[in-house]
């Protein structure tokens, strides 16, 4: 029988880091401006897809870049930064091309319906919202918010993965890598879905009133990721 308490004490730092990573992922989703199905018809501000999907796409891109970085360096800040940059590139490329489509393909200017003035550029928003819609496209504040969200998600995903591959274990490198990566993907999905229920599937960014709900999702994610991290550390550390 494996020594559960001993493994947990040895790896208590990683339990904490995994939990922190999960909480970061959960918080990050609140920044990502997604409008769900209405945004795909240019009826709501934000990216025209689902929260979970976009967060997963960005975060997993970050995981890929962080995974490549872990192979060549031990520096935690560098690994986290590369995860953040990978996710930020994915999400900002997606948003800029989204802006092309809204502006040139659909012919609507970016506008937010939640605030009258863009908090960053101070541009008037409400009169640029077309009739019968909840805004459209990605005004600067949503774009910046999305970049922040991508970055935080990338850091979170990289932190989870880094912690999992550094647990003291008897596994071979290939096996450890495989197990850690699928655990990281699983933890990522769990923490991407929880906040999307919290915001009801759509949010414009950090200026959206819904953003204030984030503590609820973060508490939920904290508890759930803590359980997952204990389970993960015992599973990997016990081998």
């Amino acid at each position: 029988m494996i020594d559960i308490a001993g493994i947990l004490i040895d790896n208590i730092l990683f339990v904490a880091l995994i939990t922190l990573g999960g909480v970061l992922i959960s918080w990050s989703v609140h920044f990502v401006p997604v409008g769900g199905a209405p945004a795909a018809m240019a009826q709501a501000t934000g990216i025209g897809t689902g929260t979970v999907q976009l967060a997963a796409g960005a975060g997993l891109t970050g995981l890929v870049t962080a995974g490549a970085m872990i192979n060549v360096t031990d520096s935690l800040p560098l690994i986290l930064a590369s995860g953040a940059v990978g996710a930020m590139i994915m999400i900002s490329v997606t948003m800029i091309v989204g802006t092309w489509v809204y502006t040139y393909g659909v012919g609507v200017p970016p506008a937010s319906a939640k605030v009258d003035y863009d908090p960053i550029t101070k541009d008037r928003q409400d009169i640029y919202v077309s009739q019968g819609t909840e805004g459209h496209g990605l005004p600067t504040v949503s774009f910046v918010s999305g970049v922040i969200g991508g970055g935080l998600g990338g850091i979170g995903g990289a932190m989870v993965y880094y912690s999992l591959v550094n647990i003291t274990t008897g596994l071979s490198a290939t096996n450890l890598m495989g197990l850690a990566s699928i655990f990281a993907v699983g933890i990522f999905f769990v923490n991407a879905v929880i906040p999307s229920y919290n915001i009801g599937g759509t949010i414009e960014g950090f200026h959206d009133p819904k953003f204030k709900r984030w503590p609820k999702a973060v508490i939920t994610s904290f508890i759930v990721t803590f359980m997952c991290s204990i389970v993960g550390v015992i599973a990997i550390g016990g081998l």
Partner: protein
Amino acid sequence: MSAGGSGGGAPEAIPQNKLIAFGVIAGLVGVYLSHYLVAYVSTAFSFIGGLAAICAIVWGAAAVRRVASYGLGTGVPSIGMLALGMGVVASMFGLAVGGIAGPIIALLSAAIIGLVIGVLANRVIGMGLPIMEQSMTEIASAGCLTILGLSASMTGTFLFDAVLNNVVATGYIAVIFIAGGLAILHPFNANLGPDEKQDRTLMTAVEKGAIAMIIAGIVSITTDGAASAPTILIGLFIWYMAFEQYRKYVDRDAYDVVGVGLLPTEEEGSE
């Protein structure tokens, strides 16, 4: 989903409790049976793991159907990603620490994590879906059993060393994750609409479960402990039967099935 939630629970020809019993018992028994039959009789019996996965998938699809018909505020797929995320963590944990009791420990830990998420979703996030706790528990457990069943069918056992070397380190766990996940999610999503019927949705689950089983059979080519041909052939057979039956249900339920045609003519003074 805009046209999804009717907000009142879906009518069920088969009660959910029977499906839970069916999923848990058939899933667990199947996983154990495939392990022991492969160990003591022949590697050809690894296909039983695939059958176990199909049973768990049907149960999971029924649970998704039940909770998603309340309307989740976001797409149907999210709940399945959540379930598979929990399921993969729990099943790897169970197998890693449990040894021969692995599948049971995996199932229990999936159920516990699912229950906690369900409780938190209602109490902290305030989703207020009356069946959220039960459904999250069910979906996480079904996801976990699906992963176990497909892994057993790929390797012929659920012992962790074999699963780790042949399924996790090689990355085939990703296909288990998504093929199992889509088999649980797709049925309700594919049959979304006001005239959705339980038997048709569950038949889709059988059909998609059979596809996951076929893929597991293909993977078992690379493993010594499992035979691939029986899994692939039985999977193809189940897929064909389920698809034929699904077509019959579609013919029964559809407004009209036409080879080619114009739009239905306007009737009853509709504009």
